[in-house]
């Protein structure tokens, strides 16, 4: 297995100052991760925990007030290594869309309302490939046909399409140049269930066709269960647990992950759905120690003051909780 993107000790804060009030929102706080070529990597967590922020940094598409305070992000394309935090204009033209692409959150508004769909495709294609109008139309037409989208959308304006169709068109627009690495932010949110299923199917298809890597962000554990190979669970700007999907679903170790899983509706069981008490903390003033401690039913004294390290429970499974750490230490010493 080869790593395609690697982040180390990433810290990205929103730093704003207005009328004498300075705010620092620690939206991504000390995150390290490695994503492998060809996998579907899920990033889960409640709203506001920093998922989109992490994504922006991984994409190298961040602007003030979002500032990367510390850490590195590197793309590994074959033998080439590219620093994602300092992309030049030339880099951007070279890698965006043809190698790294992005399906945005709330893609309802990402299509220019006064441009026909085929013209948007033309703009995006010709930025990265030297093709004429006719050729670009040909590429688009063929790709849409492959994905089973009607050709009639080409002449349409965005507002004439349904929400689901717009989302599919956006997915097509993002992947038209066969990128190796695709980031998708909440691609199914705000769609109704039937449409959701179609979009998930489409994503799966797009990913499997060329064995692309898909980094999938959603708070919906159901979608993760459907698509992801591996899942990282984010809480208040930190990774609290990371493992393969099966482990996360069947054998989560972190109390927060356990809650997330318990709050899922199950088809087979009559087990009650537990929702997590309390609300996620505001990230401009996060709790000390373990950021989950105000909501954690298992919290011990230490949790209030000491931030637990993200340790490897067993190969491929990491968690950040004092209880887990103690257990692991116990198991190795015993």
């Amino acid at each position, binding site marked *: 297995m080869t790593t395609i993107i690697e982040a180390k000790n990433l810290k990205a804060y929103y730093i704003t100052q207005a009328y004498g009030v300075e705010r620092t929102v620690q939206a991504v706080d000390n995150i390290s991760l490695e994503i492998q070529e060809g996998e579907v990597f899920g990033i889960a967590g409640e709203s506001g925990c920093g998922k989109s922020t992490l994504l922006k940094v991984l994409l190298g598409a961040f602007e003030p007030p979002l500032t990367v305070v510390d850490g590195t992000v590197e793309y590994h394309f074959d033998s080439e290594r590219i620093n994602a935090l300092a992309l030049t204009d030339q880099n951007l033209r070279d890698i965006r*869309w043809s190698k790294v692409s992005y399906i945005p959150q709330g893609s309802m508004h990402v299509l*220019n309302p006064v441009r026909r769909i085929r013209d948007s495709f033309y703009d995006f294609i010709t930025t990265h490939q030297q093709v004429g109008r006719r050729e670009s139309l040909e590429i688009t037409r063929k790709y849409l046909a492959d994905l089973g989208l009607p050709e009639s959308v080409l002449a349409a*304006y965005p*507002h004439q399409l349904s929400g689901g169709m717009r989302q599919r068109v956006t997915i097509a627009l993002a992947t038209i140049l066969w990128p190796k690495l695709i980031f998708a932010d909440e691609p199914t949110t705000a769609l109704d269930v039937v449409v959701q299923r179609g979009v998930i199917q489409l994503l799966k298809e797009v990913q499997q066709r060329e064995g692309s890597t898909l980094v999938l962000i959603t708070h919906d554990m159901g979608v993760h269960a459907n698509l992801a190979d591996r899942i990282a669970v984010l809480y208040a700007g930190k990774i609290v647990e990371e493992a393969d999907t099966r482990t996360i679903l069947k054998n989560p170790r972190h109390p927060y992950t356990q809650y997330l899983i318990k709050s899922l509706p199950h088809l087979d069981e009559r087990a009650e759905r537990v929702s997590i008490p309390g609300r996620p903390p505001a990230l401009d003033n996060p709790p000390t120690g373990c950021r989950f401690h105000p909501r954690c039913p298992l919290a011990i004294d230490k949790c209030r003051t000491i931030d637990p390290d993200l340790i490897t429970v067993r190969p491929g499974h990491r968690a950040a909780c004092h209880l887990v750490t103690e257990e692991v230490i116990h198991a190795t010493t015993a």
Partner: protein
Amino acid sequence: MTLLKEFILPRLLQWAMVIFVGVTITFLIPRLSPVNPIDQALGRLTAFQNVEPEGVLALRATLEDLYGLGGSFFDQYIAFWQRVIRGDLGPSFSAFPRPVNELIGAGLPWTIGLLGSAVVLSWVLGVVLGSLAGYFPHRLWSQVLDKVLIVVYPIPYYILAFVLLMAFTYYLPIFPLVGGAKGTPGLNWDYISSVLIHSFLPAVSIIVGATAFRFIMSKALASTETSSDYVTYAEMAAVPKRKVLFFYVTRNTMLPQITDLALSLGAIFEGALITEVVFAYPGVGSVLYNSIISADYNVIMGITLLSIVGIATASLIVDLSYPLFDPRVRFR
């Protein structure tokens, strides 16, 4: 069909409503005022000559008839509407018996020429500069432009007119002091250049403020567009800045801008009244000024009506042409 029913009809109704309200107000104002314009006119007419009492009565009857002030209030109102619809505003008080239409008509080409070109020029300038400044807010030139124009913007155009007049016809007499043109009208270079030279300062006095206004509006619109999802997305895909600026940012600000251009064009009859007065420019503004001086309220009324119809019609045209500029209205 739905376009007609849901879109065109309501706009037409709105247009009729504006005209109705405007004409009614214009009708009411002189009639509600404590001063009787006929007494005023009679006062002026009889001040210089002795007129028999019967003569005064006869004169009064004639005037009342001419100005539509005879009969009951309601009759007057109907008669007023008839005049408006016929486009016949009666004779002028001061330049009796020249019809009001003729007086206003003489000023129209000047005003349309001066104001029309000033409005269009400042629109183009403001939109171009404003879009650029909104899309590149952190560049030095953009910030300098912004600061300068924000201070220039609130300066009233007539003040600028005075300043320009003082500076360039008096201290540095490089421009003619007053008037519209010299020589006999004709399509020869002498006459045209004279028109251009005479209109230069008045035009500048209007263009400066109007450009500042357009710049501020355009910049605000452009920076909203710049933070919109579709612009961010296109930038993320590294679509060239030129293309983003043109097809994504500016193209999306066009709708309100074109609306506003048409409204400004509709408003030219009230637009730069004092500019014309300051530079003694022979347009509608000067006609209005002269009629104010001579209390020629029929002419004033005519110009008021003209500007009401002008702006109402402009906004109707704007509304009806929306579908041309916005696909969201065109294909519903």
